[in-house]
């Protein structure tokens, strides 16, 4: 037991980082669901494309695994360009795979999303190959500050960067949704799409905006994970998408604070599960928590009861 307590703080750090990333992915799921009522299964692939874009930017700005300009600028560029490319791909999928099916039965949209997911995965496989791409991150972070020791806990600077960027992005999103006009329009559209149309809100534009924001956050998550775990391959979107989706459902799908909370709970649950049980049960614990919460509170932790639209 003593040993377990010693590793707990470290596991909290592990879980918090992972949870933050899950939360960023979950936001994309939850925003699209909130407005279109569909599960965007291609979201995991958007995340993967974000990861590849980040790798590509780093690769272009490096010579012999050494970055050619200020490291902070490189990291910022990686994240911003990844967000841009992911947002672009997100908008394209919305325009060509989802909008034509807006009035079709939900199941068609779902199948279309699965199709997009398989398409994007194979596209990247075709152009990048199956081999993992490595982020050579050593020149980004100087040796002296790479590891930070806090008592028994070791935190890498990349972990801190990931946690900081994640929370910054989530804060910006919350402000945007609460305070801006576009945020208000998004909330209105989520509540009642038809009514929003009557009130003069350009719903198509709001939907595009939702895809831009959700995909950009997914892309940021992809690059952040690349920085943290130093590798990306064409298949990472599947696992990440599944976890992000679970986090969204856990927090209450459709609710943005719920997605944030769900992600962090899921990340912590996985890390802590490894402490107390054999590592093989990591995912089992995460999904048992999901099942229990859905039984006790079917709408998820922060989900509102879905009102029947009259």
């Amino acid at each position, binding site marked *: 037991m003593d*040993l*377990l307590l*010693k*590793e707990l703080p*470290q*596991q909290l750090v*592990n*879980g918090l980082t*992972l949870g933050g990333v899950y939360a960023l992915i979950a936001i994309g799921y939850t925003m699209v669901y909130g407005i279109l009522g569909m599960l965007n299964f291609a979201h995991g692939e958007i995340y993967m494309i974000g990861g590849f874009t980040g790798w590509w930017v780093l690769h272009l700005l490096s010579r012999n*695994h050494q970055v050619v300009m200020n490291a902070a600028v490189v990291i910022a560029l990686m994240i911003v360009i990844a967000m841009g490319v992911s947002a672009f791909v997100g908008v394209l999928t919305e325009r060509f795979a989802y909008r034509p099916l807006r009035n079709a039965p939900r199941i068609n949209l779902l199948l279309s999303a699965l199709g997009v997911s398989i398409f994007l995965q194979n596209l990247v496989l075709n152009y990048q190959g*199956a*081999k*993992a791409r*490595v982020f*050579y*991150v*050593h020149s980004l972070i100087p040796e002296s500050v790479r*590891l930070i*020791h806090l008592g028994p806990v*070791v935190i*890498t600077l990349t972990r801190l960067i990931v946690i900081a960027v994640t929370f910054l992005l989530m804060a910006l999103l919350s402000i945007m949704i609460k305070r801006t006009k576009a945020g208000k329009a998004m909330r209105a559209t989520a509540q009642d799409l038809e009514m929003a149309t009557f009130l003069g809100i350009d719903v198509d534009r709001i939907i595009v905006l939702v895809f831009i924001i959700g995909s950009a956050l997914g892309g940021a998550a992809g690059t952040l*994970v690349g920085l*943290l*775990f*130093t*590798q990306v*391959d064409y*298949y*990472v979107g599947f*696992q990440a998408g599944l976890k992000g989706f679970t986090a969204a459902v856990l927090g209450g799908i459709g609710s943005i604070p719920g997605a944030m909370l769900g992600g962090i709970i899921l990340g912590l649950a*996985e*890390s802590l599960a*490894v*402490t107390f049980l*054999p*590592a*093989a049960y*990591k995912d089992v614990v995460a999904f048992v928590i999901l099942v229990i919460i859905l039984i006790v509170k079917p709408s998820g932790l922060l989900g509102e009861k879905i009102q029947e639209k009259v």
Partner: protein
Amino acid sequence: MRKGYRLFFIIALILCFAGFLARAHAAGLIDPSTGMKVTEIHIGDAGSFTGDAASPCMEIFHSAQIALDEWNAKGGIHGVKLKHIMGDDAMDPAQGVNVAHKFVSDKLMYGVIGPPMSHIAQATLKIYGRANLACITTAASKPNLTEQGYKHFFRVNARNDSHGWNCALFIKNYLKAKRVAVLNEKVAYCENMAKETIKGLKKLGIKDIMQETIVGGSKDFSPVLTKVKAFKPDVLFFIATTAPDQAIGVRQMKELGIKAIFLGTEGARDKKDFIQASEGAAEGAYVYHFAPDIYAIPAAAGYVKTYEKKYGTISGFGPPAYEAMNILLAAIDRAAADGKITRKEVVEELHKTKNYKGILGFPITFNAKGDLEGGATYFFKVVGNDFKQVAVMTGK
């Protein structure tokens, strides 16, 4: 009835005549099982020549080709030329089965190099076995491939169970470990390897063993490594299939401040995807491999020179294939010495292979099952951007 007699008589006459003709062409080679004249000897090469494992498999093919070319330059076998035929399974057992059917139906084929993947070797075992077509694999290490009663299947690489025992010996005697953590991926090869190693460690009196599992390709091993850190092991045996996963493993181990010695699998013997990808974290780590450092063996110098001139650098998968092709052709040569050859004869001759001294640096003898006697495991240490061979374990 009478017609039957006549037919029999005519056939017998034709056969006598054919026999006479064959005798007249004394230099030729005859296969009594098919009654055909062997105009060319075909050697199949089954492997995954496209897809993720293409580069090691092409190295196998090229190395086998070098051996075959050398035999052809000497005039072939019994005056008959040799031909090397590629059969690509793309790592898919279903395609492996197609390759096997194609090879088996080739009447001029007397042996096959491969398949190098255990799961494909398993899927095709019956097909080659029924046809008595000799197969020598150069990499498939799953133990039960040679435990199913087939006589045609041989390997020049050691099995997982001897690798496991050899790794246990290395951990105890070379690395002098007292506490050992074993992490293994949840796939057949890795689980088997972990089981055999732990069995060996216990036999050697090491009691403090921790075993945990990882998921291949999951990119984050920090939760399970945090658990390993609390265990304070002397050695961490990280049993994963691919080099990229092991690069992340060794990097995260260092980041968490785990002081243990990292021991990786044969998959990690990859300069780019393991040493470089870990950005220095792999320095001082060890990996095991079924093939030795070919550059350190004088007998291999000729092969190395030819290979590098024609195909580039050698990773370690090629030399056993050069050896396997030579062993196979030597057996065919012995079988063909009397002017007659059958597939069954080739298998029988292969079983007689004893103390064959080639380029691998140890004599090769097949036991009754077709396994290498006293299977060897080689250990390498990461020094700078290279692997340095530090030990060989042969079960003792």
